[in-house]
């Protein structure tokens, strides 16, 4: 009989923000212990030993699991709130869900997720061949980790789908722990400590002579891990050899306070020493940003000797993301944008921001915009101006139809054309514009089954891995212009050589870096021409662009140019490009547009070409070209709208009626629309008069100032 508490077997987990921790013991009690080590409260919790205890993320509740098979929820004060479940076998491990409203616990060989709501049905699945000993659930990436007596560790998603299963070890897995940012985890076993990527493959293996590692715990910055050993010792481990590559530079964290930067081009090696422990480093856009526990260092790739240094408010940086002009720094308190000379640009914030759970998939930065996905409602994306930290537009965030998994902003081009790529829960990829003025935000679907995506750093090309294919959208904007054109601007390649579940790491210039599922890094190049084309178009050198396309003779490139020139309303280039991709109808249409004397009307026709009649109509009405708007609707067989416009502006009612009449005659049909019947009564259709009126309209257009000749009727191809 054990009457005295045995501390070592219990799991101690510290509650954030408070100086209280819980100690569970084999005599069925748990103890709340203050910072000084004084036991503040002991509570009789279970029959038999209490095997695990954990605080919820918000610190308001505590869950314990015992040998008696019960899982109990306790208030912070130690009062019993509820008994979640009763099982026949001991519960060895428990973990809280990301929102602290679900509990994951083990039940023999099964894993069970149960909501705190009493009537919710639990999710249950068989996890291992042996009894499951430990579980962990990461709040950032929402993945579940389990270790069992069958000597394996496995990674799951929250639906119980297996993402990774390790080969069998020599001894049962006795502990697992995620890093706070969810990028890696450690696995402890007898004399074994293993560091793994979130995809499951292992970075490193250490064989300390310590006996079994019963419990592992990360420091809040995710650089150090502590383990309780079977021989009564505590081991501390540091992560080293973290390596980053950017163009010709390679940065390696060689020890906890030193970084080596190697320039591969000339083999020059720079050794950077720091006073404090390195927490995060990021290398991109010609700058190396290093966050230590107290300061932030910014090195330029041109000068490694004199970094810009500024102090950090709190030495717990969880994420650094870089853009060309500035970078984003996230610690547990908030989100900050700093320029590369170390100046704080702004601090974007919104109601209910939880900076501690942000990761690289839910935050994105570009030169002028910061996008953050909300944690409370995963459909919502907040967009901020990177210069002043204010929310863009009317302060309303972007709301997607479904839960958003990943967001990414494109990196170049003018800020008014900033695009945001969204991957939602169905792994569909959508493209939306960030800055909208007055008009409705258009979100268009680009692809499906997206596993991973990346924008190019120098041009607005988007690469993604989807469903066994590697896809590059050379000009994603084409989706706004012409849905038919989009598939022709896409470069696709079979990705089966990368195995299952590859990850896209970087897309620099024409170089793509992909990480295979077992961890090896594979590079790939794409054609350099689209990037050149982008740069020509960006500087409006259309002749050079056309010359380039002629030189390369690639259909994809011509399609890109067609889309780009159509978007920029560069008619001559568009005509050539459409001709090159054998779109005769569109060439015809463009020739027609070129003949239109009025600029607004041309714009409207371009909008039509891009397949958005609403926009076209809006442009026409705004310019006061009511006749054209009516004709537009007539040509689209949008009779009701045409008549409505005619009646509203009290012109050309007879024109609308006349065309309607003609149309019905052609198909030998009777008029059924009540509206038309109503107006038909009062108006006589006289074709001569109508023709005269139409001629008059064109005459009027021609007479508008600064307009050139010719006013042929614009009949566009129907689409």
């Amino acid at each position, binding site marked *: 009989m054990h009457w005295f508490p045995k501390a070592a077997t219990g799991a101690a987990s510290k509650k954030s923000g408070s100086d209280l921790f819980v100690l569970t013991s084999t005599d069925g009690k748990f103890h709340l212990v203050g910072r000084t080590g004084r036991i503040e409260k002991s509570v009789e919790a279970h029959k038999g030993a209490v095997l695990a205890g954990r605080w919820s993320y918000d610190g308001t509740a505590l869950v314990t699991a015992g040998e008696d098979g019960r899982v109990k929820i306790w208030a912070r004060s130690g009062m019993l709130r509820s008994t979640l479940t009763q099982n026949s076998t001991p519960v060895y491990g428990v973990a809280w869900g990301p929102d602290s409203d679900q509990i994951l616990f083990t039940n023999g060989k099964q894993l069970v997720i149960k909501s705190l709501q009493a009537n919710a049905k639990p999710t249950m699945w068989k996890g291992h061949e042996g009894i499951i000993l430990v579980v962990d659930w990461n709040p950032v990436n929402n993945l579940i980790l389990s270790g069992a007596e069958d000597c394996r560790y496995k990674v799951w998603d929250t639906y119980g789908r297996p993402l990774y299963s390790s080969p069998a*070890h*020599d001894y049962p897995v006795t502990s697992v722990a995620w890093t706070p940012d969810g990028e890696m985890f450690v696995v402890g076993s007898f*004399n*074994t400590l293993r560091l793994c990527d979130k995809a499951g*493959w*292992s970075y*490193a*293996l250490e*064989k300390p002579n310590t006996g079994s590692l019963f419990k592992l715990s990360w420091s809040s910055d995710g650089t150090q891990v502590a383990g309780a050993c079977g021989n009564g010792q505590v081991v501390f481990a540091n992560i080293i050899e973290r390596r980053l590559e950017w163009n010709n530079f390679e940065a390696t964290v060689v020890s906890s306070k030193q970084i080596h930067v190697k320039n591969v081009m000339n083999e020059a090696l720079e050794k950077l020493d720091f006073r404090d422990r390195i927490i995060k480093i990021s290398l991109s856009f010609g700058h190396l940003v290093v966050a230590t526990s107290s300061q932030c260092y910014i090195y330029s790739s041109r000068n490694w000797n004199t970094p810009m240094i500024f102090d950090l408010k709190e030495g717990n940086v969880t994420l650094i993301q870089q853009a060309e002009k500035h970078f984003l720094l996230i610690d547990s308190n908030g989100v900050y944008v700093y320029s590369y000379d170390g100046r704080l640009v702004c601090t974007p914030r919104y109601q209910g921001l939880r900076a501690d759970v942000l990761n690289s998939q839910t935050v994105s930065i570009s030169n002028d915009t910061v996008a953050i996905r909300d944690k409370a409602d995963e459909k919502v994306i907040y967009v901020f101006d990177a210069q002043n930290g204010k929310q863009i537009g009317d302060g309303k965030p972007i709301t997607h139809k479904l839960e958003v998994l990943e967001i990414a902003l494109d990196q170049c081009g003018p800020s008014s054309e900033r695009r945001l790529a969204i991957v939602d829960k169905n792994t569909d990829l959508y493209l939306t514009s960030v800055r909208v003025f007055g008009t409705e935000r258009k979100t268009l679907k680009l692809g499906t089954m997206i596993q991973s995506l990346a924008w190019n750093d120098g041009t607005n090309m988007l690469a993604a891995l989807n469903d066994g294919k590697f896809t590059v959208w050379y000009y994603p904007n084409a989706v706004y212009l012409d849905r038919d054109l989009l598939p022709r601007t896409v470069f696709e390649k079979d990705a089966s050589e990368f195995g299952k579940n590859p990850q896209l790491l970087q897309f620099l210039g024409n170089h793509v870096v992909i990480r*295979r599922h*077992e*961890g*090896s*890094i*594979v*590079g*790939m*190049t794409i054609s*350099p021409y689209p990037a050149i084309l982008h740069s020509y178009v960006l500087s409006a050198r259309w002749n050079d662009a056309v010359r380039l396309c002629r*030189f390369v003779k690639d259909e994809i490139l011509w399609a890109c140019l067609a889309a780009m020139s159509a978007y920029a309303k560069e008619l001559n280039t568009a005509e050539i490009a459409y001709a090159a991709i054998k779109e005769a109808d569109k060439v015809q249409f463009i020739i027609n547009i070129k003949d239109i004397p009025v600029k607004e009307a041309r714009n409207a026709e371009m909008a039509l070409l891009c397949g958005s009649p609403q926009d076209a109509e809006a442009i026409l009405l705004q310019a006061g070209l009511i006749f054209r708007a009516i004709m537009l609707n007539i040509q689209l067989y949008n009779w009701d709208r045409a008549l409505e416009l005619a009646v509203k502006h009290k012109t050309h009612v007879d024109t609308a009626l006349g065309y309607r009449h003609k149309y019905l005659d052609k198909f030998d049909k009777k008029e059924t629309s009540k509206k038309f019947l109503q107006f038909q009564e009062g108006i006589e259709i006289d074709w001569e008069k109508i023709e005269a009126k139409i001629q008059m309209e064109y005459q009027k257009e021609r007479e508008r100032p600064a307009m050139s000749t010719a006013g042929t009727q614009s009949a566009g191809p129907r689409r």
Partner: protein
Amino acid sequence: MADETLARAGLHFDELNKIRVLEPEISQQTGELKEECKDFVDKIGDFQTIVGTFIEVVDNVAKEVEKEKMKAIGSRNLLKSITKQREAQQQQLQALITERKMQQERLRIQYEALLKEESEQNEFIEQFILQK
């Protein structure tokens, strides 16, 4: 005659003509016995010392044997445990080797990818030059 009388009275004369109460023979025998007894006692004493040393020696030997025995058992156990230790060590090293192998495999794949990329780039450059 006189001797006999004296002898009857219990008096005797020895060779040195000293008067004695005991018969000279018996006296001689007694003396001899005494000598013998003394001898015997001496011998017994010797024996005791010899046996004492012997016991001591045997004891020492026993202790020595015991010690050696323990040593033997210890080393035998050690031997056993060393094989086990070796096994464990081997296992550990094996695990490390597998780990390294995996790492190597990863690097090999990366290297191959880089080679492929290089050849692609070269091809591209050649093509580019040819086109001009």
